[in-house]
């Protein structure tokens, strides 16, 4: 192994026991990455914050008790509770107490308490070409694909080791070679009108994760410039149904001005044609139910942005959700604060919606048992709810979610999705 003097000093404990433990874990993982050296990172995003039980708390507290401090700016992903709002929900007190202890441990290490799975929509977003150690699958996808920053697909528990040491294995997506496209997805006869629709992007993300789960897809055939929120939806979808850590979208994302450049001058090793049939199948696959029953609408995975609040507010203005339906939006503390200051929350709360920050129903046991039928506009909520929450789920566009909440039953404008 080609360890530097700095790496060896950390391993020898010269920078304290926490840095030693972090480096020992990284060093044991080095061969699993298939390389023999480390490299520097400039920043990190820590997904280890997600409270999954006593083990994740004990891990955080072990590091904090040993005196761990992050060496690079490190934003924090969601935690296991809405720290100041969990009492309104069904969160068991023990979970709230433990998850809060875990939050304190990561704050004690000097991390930035962003508590969001959309750190790229904060002032802490990285820039093109920066080397980052990011956990959280959608964040990894967004940093790599949309921003052109460079991070491997890091798991929870390793991201914090990278932040404490400032070091990661010099592997994969950190290197030019590792960022080359591996499969060409050619959109055929996908009309521009559909590409302008927010509902297209979660479906596309879900599809790319399905057809190229371990690849670097290059998407060709875009006729419009998607918004950042639309690209965020592709990242979250592809990182749920698959392990997409980087995709290129020709003419849209920064490393793909042309198809040729996305493949670094080589021919695509594989080509997949994607037409309306494939997209309709992906759309259908996002839902597990076909009835009208609706208990809750849930929005904001990844966390809602200001622009998404701007889209929601006029749809719900001067209206009321049905009594039997809950309506939840998840976002960061910062976005809630800004949305509140500019008057976006007022119509949304008057509609009967609730806002949860710091976390979401997938990472916090907050929903009552009676919630069995969800509706969402998020591919990530749609993918994980059946397994994590034991619910059925129906995927629909934002306006469908609002109309359904008002009617008290699921209604969808099938439009282009109808065969």
């Amino acid at each position, binding site marked *: 192994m080609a360890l530097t003097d700095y790496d060896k000093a950390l391993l020898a404990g010269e920078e304290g026991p926490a840095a030693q*433990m972090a480096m*020992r*874990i990284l060093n*044991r*993982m080095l061969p*699993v*990455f*298939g390389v023999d050296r480390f490299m520097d990172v400039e920043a990190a995003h820590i*997904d*280890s914050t*997600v409270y*999954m*039980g*006593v*083990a*994740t708390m*004990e*891990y955080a507290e*072990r590091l904090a008790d040993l005196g761990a401090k992050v060496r690079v700016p490190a934003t924090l992903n969601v935690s296991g509770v809405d720290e100041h709002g969990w009492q309104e929900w069904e969160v068991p007190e023990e979970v709230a107490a433990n998850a809060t202890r875990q939050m304190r441990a990561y704050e004690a290490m000097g991390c930035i308490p962003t508590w969001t799975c959309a750190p790229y929509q904060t002032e802490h977003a990285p820039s093109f070409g920066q080397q980052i150690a990011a*956990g*959280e*699958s959608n964040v*990894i996808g967004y940093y790599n694909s949309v921003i052109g920053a460079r991070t*491997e*697909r*890091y*798991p*929870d*528990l*390793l*991201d914090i080791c990278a932040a404490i040491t400032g070091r990661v294995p010099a592997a994969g997506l950190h290197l030019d070679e590792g960022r080359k496209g591996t499969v060409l997805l050619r959109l055929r006869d996908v009309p521009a009108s559909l590409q302008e629709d927010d509902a297209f992007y979660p479906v596309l993300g879900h599809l790319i*994760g399905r057809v190229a*789960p*371990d690849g670097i897809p290059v998407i060709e055939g875009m006729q419009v410039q998607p918004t950042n929120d639309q690209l965020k939806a592709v990242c979250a979808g592809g*990182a*749920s*149904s*698959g*392990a997409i850590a980087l995709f290129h979208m020709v003419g849209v994302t920064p490393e793909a001005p042309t198809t040729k450049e996305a493949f670094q001058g080589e021919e695509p090793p594989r080509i997949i044609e994607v037409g309306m049939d494939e997209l309709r199948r992906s759309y259908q*696959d996002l839902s*597990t139910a076909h009835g009208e029953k609706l208990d809750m609408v849930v929005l904001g995975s990844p966390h809602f942005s200001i622009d998404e609040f701007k889209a929601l507010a006029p749809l719900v203005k001067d209206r009321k959700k049905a009594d039997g339906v809950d309506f939840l939006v998840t976002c960061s503390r910062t976005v809630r604060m800004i949305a509140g200051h500019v008057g976006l929350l007022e119509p949304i709360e008057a509609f009967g919606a609730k806002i949860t920050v710091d976390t979401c129903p*997938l*990472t916090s046991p907050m929903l009552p048992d009676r919630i069995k039928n969800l509706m969402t506009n998020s591919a990530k909520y749609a*993918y*994980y709810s*059946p*397994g*994590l929450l034991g619910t059925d789920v129906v995927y629909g566009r934002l306006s469908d979610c609002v109309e359904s909440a008002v009617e008290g039953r699921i209604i969808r404008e099938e439009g282009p999705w109808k065969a």
Partner: protein
Amino acid sequence: MESVTGTIIIPGQAEGMLLASAEPLSFWGGYDQHTGEIIDRRHPLSGEIGTDRILALPFTRGSSTTTAILLESVRRGVAPAGIITDRADVFLALASVVADEMYESAFPMVAVGRSVFDRLKSGDHARIREGGVIEFEISA
């Protein structure tokens, strides 16, 4: 029994009934850390129990929290006895490394490549031995 030698990802020994799928899995939203049940309702192994089995998956997809779920599963005693993958998988390997750091209870992992992986069948008996050797029954 057939015997093949794979690449050691995490050294150790384990024995149990195989639970195998060619479809990748996210443990977050896919493996219940309280019961060991496979809970990804879109996955072919949905409803199966992974506890004490030799779990064979090509690689992990989805969430970074896969590692945290597997660590919790080790702590609660509902983790697989050992894991066989098609290729080196960082998410699963890290759970074993941290389980060793925190609880001195690492589980072994071996990567065997696609051609061997494709012959592993749920229900067959398998052993992971020292040196990355895997022994498994060959069903008809």
